[in-house]
């Protein structure tokens, strides 16, 4: 008698458990980014018109992207995090502080970025000069096509930087 009731209880529990797992998975998937959001994840920017030490902000995946041609007089000129495009060196990074995602402001006279939220500082290659940010500004996946750059795709140069753990 009790064996039979136990069996029924376990069978019910197992089916209810399966159902709950299924429902949890469905709930998780409902919260996932939509396909349209993921599909819109590529942006092409043209670097040919950039001026030295002048910060431009582009948009990729809704995030600001810092684009700056770094001049020889900038202390960060020899940093390996800069991307060589022809004879020029470019600083390209997601313009969100790696601490909690505020947009740092660039001060050209100091050659550095200062975050308005918690006071983090970065140099013109995105390296941290002052905590709390735990890591340099993130370089987004990119692919070079002449003087054009496609963001969201991993090209040869990006993979090389990745191998050197620069991104």
């Amino acid at each position, binding site marked *: 008698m009790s064996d039979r009731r136990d069996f029924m209880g376990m069978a019910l529990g197992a089916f209810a458990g399966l159902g709950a797992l299924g429902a949890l998975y469905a709930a*998780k998937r409902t*919260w*996932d*980014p*939509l396909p349209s*959001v993921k599909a819109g*994840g590529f942006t092409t920017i043209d670097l040919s018109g950039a001026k030295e030490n002048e910060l431009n*902000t582009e*948009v990729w*995946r*809704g*995030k*600001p992207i810092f684009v700056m041609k770094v001049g020889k007089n900038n202390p960060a000129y020899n940093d390996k995090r800069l991307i060589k495009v022809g004879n020029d060196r470019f600083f390209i990074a997601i313009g*969100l502080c*790696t*601490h*909690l*995602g*505020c*947009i740092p*402001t660039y001060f050209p006279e100091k050659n550095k970025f200062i975050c*308005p*939220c*918690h*006071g983090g500082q970065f140099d013109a290659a995105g390296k941290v000069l002052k*905590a*709390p*940010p*735990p*890591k340099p500004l993130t370089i987004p996946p990119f692919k070079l096509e002449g003087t054009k750059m496609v963001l969201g795709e991993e090209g040869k140069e990006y993979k090389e930087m990745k191998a050197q753990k620069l991104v």
Partner: protein
Amino acid sequence: MAHFDPNAKPFTKKWLNERLAIETIERVMSTEYWIPKNINFLWAMGMVLAATFGLLLISGIFLLMYYIPTTKEAFNSVNYLIMSQVGYGWLWRHIHAVAASVVFLIIYIHMFTGIYYGSYKKGREMIWISGMLLFLTFSGEAFAGYVLPWGQMSYWAGMVITNLFEGFSKDFLGGALNFPGLVEWIRGDYVPGQAFIGRFFMLHVVLMPLAIIGLIVLHFGALRIPHVNNQDGEEIDFEAEAEKWKAGKRKESKVIPFKPVFLSKDVFVLSIYFIFFFYLVFYHFEFAMDPVNFDPADPLKTPPHIYPEWYFLWSYEVLRAFPKNPGLVAFGFVQAILLVLPFLDRSPNVAPASKRGPFKIWFWLLLVDMVILTILGKLPPEGIFTILGKIAAYTLIALWIALPFITKAEKPIGGR
């Protein structure tokens, strides 16, 4: 077998009693729910909170009728539609904004009252824990609500707070506690956008209010058996004292019934509170509405100085006093440690802090330190403020670590 009198007239007391036991419910819930006499106005804060929650619910229902949860319409639906088109829309918005701010002031008073009088010990642990869970759900509810008007502060608060879920950086424990995908999953996008506003709208108006209501029931239920504490932490035999009251020895009895005696005191405090509350709603609502949030959300521009609402400033200051990883640990620590307060206080004394020796100093240090953190949280992270913030944050952590040792060494009061 239940007995139903066929001659009872419908909807008379007798008829309702037979079907719904209304008099039994009233007796158990109010006329024979006993409250100690030896209390002060701070014991009315629970009812003040319940009433404020009621105001939030009612004003929220009216706002819900016109608010549009889309990135394009949200800002205008609040700042134009509700504020200048909907008749008395401004009233609901100002009540909602003021109540959302003031409710935290009362929560903090309620919490510090509990800490001061030791109302979390000896059978009252579940009251404290359910109360802390309410504090956490109210915090989540406040955050979700803050996002909805889709102003600059809404957007950047959404960005910063969801980024916390990225966890520790990759160089910490080999990245085992780094969850880059989790942030995008919570947002439903790479940055806060339409998916984000939709889900936080749902959380704010349905899921979290339901959780809060459930927790309020639990919080009240947790009071039932241990009863509320009193000004001296005296252990009262509620059954015996209730019998005295019922026998007519009202002066001798140490307790009063919730209804009508305690309720009349509660209503008095509530009345005073509402004068203060509606003064704010009608004449000083601006303190609850940050001017920066009257600029529409702009994903490409962070406001020059961002800060949370005043009630989150102390934990925000702890977060930014450290680099990222230790900051997260400290932030999590000062939140979670509150939940286990009943088990950190090792002293058997249930008494006001003034009678507990070193604990008295601990209590006032805690209060002052949290006020200091709150003030520093509003100031820009520069120079001397950064250093003071670090000191205050370390002090807060040190106080919690010291608590078990201080209370362990405390002398028992009155041979109890």
